[in-house]
């Protein structure tokens, strides 16, 4: 297993109230498996991704990534991030406003020491052309590209790093229908080109069905149902049926 979570919970304690964002969540992801996490706003999807990417620590439970527990990864996060990458809803905010996109593309390859700078550049350029972006983006800044182009650029960057596990945090939800379809197609073709494991979070079951092997449905911080993407029509839980109906319009 590349990722294993056993009974993880996340509780946020404020001055006046305590919020349980995740409660007793267990899941496991095998090598090159494609997992979808569905649920409405505030169901804990993004919190789960923050825990899986070690941005936050779980309050309770065991989390294992690449065979090592969270405690074992402490202080070795850079080593982990060589194999684990995350793509956010808006890549616009993932790029520093004062950083040229070429520099942004190269940064992880250089930091992780993936080949020489020239090799890293060639690798990035190859992936840029793969996602349909012109090499002229290299000198541009984030405000000069559209949302869809930036998402494709972020995808190319992760592929250039050669991440084994990618966490997608609703990467299509801020895009128009055409760009959504393009990004979905790209993820599919990139997966065929260079298979990797991914966890894809979305509120849209249609998108998850197209992109994943298995879908986990979450509600109020807990997993309510897990089913194979092809069996989505056989969903038993009323909440899953509700989401399915919503995605079908």
């Amino acid at each position, binding site marked *: 297993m590349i990722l294993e979570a056993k009974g993880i919970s996340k509780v946020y304690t404020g001055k006046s109230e305590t919020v349980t964002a995740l409660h007793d969540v267990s899941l496991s992801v095998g090598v090159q498996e494609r997992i979808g996490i569905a649920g409405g706003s505030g169901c804990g999807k993004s919190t789960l991704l923050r825990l899986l990417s070690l941005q936050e620590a779980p309050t309770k439970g065991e989390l294992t990534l690449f065979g090592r527990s969270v405690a074992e990864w402490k202080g070795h996060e850079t080593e982990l991030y060589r194999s684990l990458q995350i793509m956010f809803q808006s890549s616009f905010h993932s790029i520093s406003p004062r*950083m040229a996109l070429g520099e942004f593309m190269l940064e992880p390859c250089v*930091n992780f020491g993936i080949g020489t700078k020239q090799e890293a550049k060639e690798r990035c350029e190859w992936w840029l052309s793969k996602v349909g972006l012109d090499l002229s983006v290299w000198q541009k800044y984030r405000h000069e590209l559209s949302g869809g182009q930036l998402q494709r650029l972020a995808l190319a960057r992760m592929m250039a790093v050669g991440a084994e596990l990618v966490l997608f945090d609703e990467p299509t939800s801020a895009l128009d229908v055409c760009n959504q379809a393009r990004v979905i197609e790209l993820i599919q073709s990139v997966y065929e080109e260079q298979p990797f494991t991914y966890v894809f979070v979305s509120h849209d079951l249609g998108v998850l069905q197209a992109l994943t092997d298995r879908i986990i449905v979450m509600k109020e911080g807990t997993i309510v149902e897990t089913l194979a993407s092809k069996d989505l029509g056989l969903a038993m839980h009323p909440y899953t049926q509700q989401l399915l109906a919503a995605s079908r319009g």
Partner: protein
Amino acid sequence: MIRLWKQDKLLLGAILLTILWMGLFLFGSHLAPFDPNETNLGARLQDISATHLLGTDQLGRDVLSRILWGGQDSLFIAISIIAISSIIGICIGGLLSMSPWYIDELGSRCIDMILGFPSMIVAIACIGILGPSVENIIISLCLTRWAEYAKITRNLVNLEKQAQYVVVARMSGASLWCIIRRYMIPNLRGTLLLVIIQHMGDTIITVASFSLIGIGVQPPTPEWGAILLNARDFLQTAPWLLIYPGLAIFITVVLLNYISDALQDGRHV
């Protein structure tokens, strides 16, 4: 410069004018036609003439030379205060925001306490204890001003730490130093520069005010506020003694405030 020329010609003009204006005073000692303290009782309170372009004061000293020399002193004091307090404040604010939460909390409560005191009264009290001199004005104002920079820097860095691109940078293997150098400094320097420019005008007025109430630069040093202090008895008979140094302060502050506002509005920083 080229980008600014394309985006905002007026702002570029104001920046160049400010550089020219300040340069005039910073090199004032070389440009002044007379010694600012050279008295000539035979030429007391003279109006504008070819020899004395801005007239003379009650001791026959050349007003233009005194304003040019005074500008050098005023700008030197203001720039020293801003430079010392901003360096101290930015370093303390930056260190606090990078420290464990309890040190950050303790430090920021201390800063809040310092900011809670009325800064002008504290500075006046300090000058009262230390005595009026250029060094003591700088020390007194630095003692109160650094906290503002520390507070602003701490808050800005804390916001920046949570920015999504910093999270992405961390996940791209960037070290803390790399994040500070490539993300924090480029993204924060503009805002801090804006604050510094805003404070510059304010500091020039404060220093002049101290001299005007007699606790600043002492005569015969021709600082702008000190020139105004000497001229107050001649408001009716020789108004130029007040008008010209007053205009020098006014133009400097207006230029600095204009640049700061234009930078803020246009988001050029």
